[in-house]
């Protein structure tokens, strides 16, 4: 086996740190993933991320993790987010606008009630790359 260089060791350390961080994030009650592929970004995903951010700040919520991931494969239904409440099946919301974000945040993220009108599917979604 070839010897590891300092740079390679550094990368391994960073990767391990990243995994530790991911484990730590399980303390959150809810996770909102905004899908940020080229399709999502072109359709307004950053604005959607901003709208969720505004909700988190305005309502002073500290137990919700806001993050992003890549394209989920349904480019024509972007902007799209996946909402995961701890212990419940993930829900994917499609064709989003900042107005819809407000409703989803209040009803689903804070109230626990799925907004069926905006949801695409429940239970089969993954948020990893």
């Amino acid at each position, binding site marked *: 086996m070839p010897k590891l260089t300092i740079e390679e060791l550094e990368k391994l350390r960073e990767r391990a740190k990243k995994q530790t961080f991911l484990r730590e994030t399980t303390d959150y009650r809810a996770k909102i993933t905004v899908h940020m*592929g080229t399709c999502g970004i072109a359709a307004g995903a950053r604005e959607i991320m901003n709208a969720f951010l505004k909700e988190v700040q305005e309502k002073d919520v500290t137990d*919700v*993790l806001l993050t992003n991931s890549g394209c989920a494969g349904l480019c024509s239904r972007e902007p799209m987010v996946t909402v995961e409440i701890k212990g419940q099946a993930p829900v994917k919301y499609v064709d989003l606008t900042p107005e819809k974000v407000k409703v989803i945040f209040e009803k689903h993220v804070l109230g626990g009630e799925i907004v069926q009108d905006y949801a695409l599917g429940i239970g089969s979604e993954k948020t990893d790359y």
Partner: protein
Amino acid sequence: MEDLSLHLLDVAENSLAAQATRVIITLEINTANKTLRLIIEDNGQGMDKQTLKKAVDPFFTTKKTRRIGLGLSLLAQAAHATGGQFSIESKPGQGTKVSTLFYTDHWDFKPLGDIPQTLLTLVLGHPEVELIFIYRRDDKETIFSTKEVKAKLNGLPLNSPAAIPLIMNHINKAMNL
């Protein structure tokens, strides 16, 4: 893509998908020459020669979720439309560097857009990654670094809601040239 800040978000997301632990973004505006340079450099997994050749082909992608890959080709097109340049260098295991040059007085030059919002989105989405943003306008330079912000947070994660005002403060300071 409506503006350059969205292109930046898109290409930087590629770096993060390539498991980069450090991303350096350089934005260089030269008002005398009427040019804008945008460089995105990462230490991610990089690409071999064959993949690199196909990277700007819109009908090529390494992703499994879809069969087209528009991100880099759209950025290249946006730069070329102004009479500018686009180049990409990459080595497997070492990282990738995307460099663009735009002529700002060309009528096809897209607006810069909301760079602070793009940086905040990147930080929140990938708090484990070290993000460095270097902003140069003529002879002036400012730097935003997540390492610096982290040092002030005393262990509080970068993506915790309480950290957002501090991150925005640092980003806005860096943009204020």
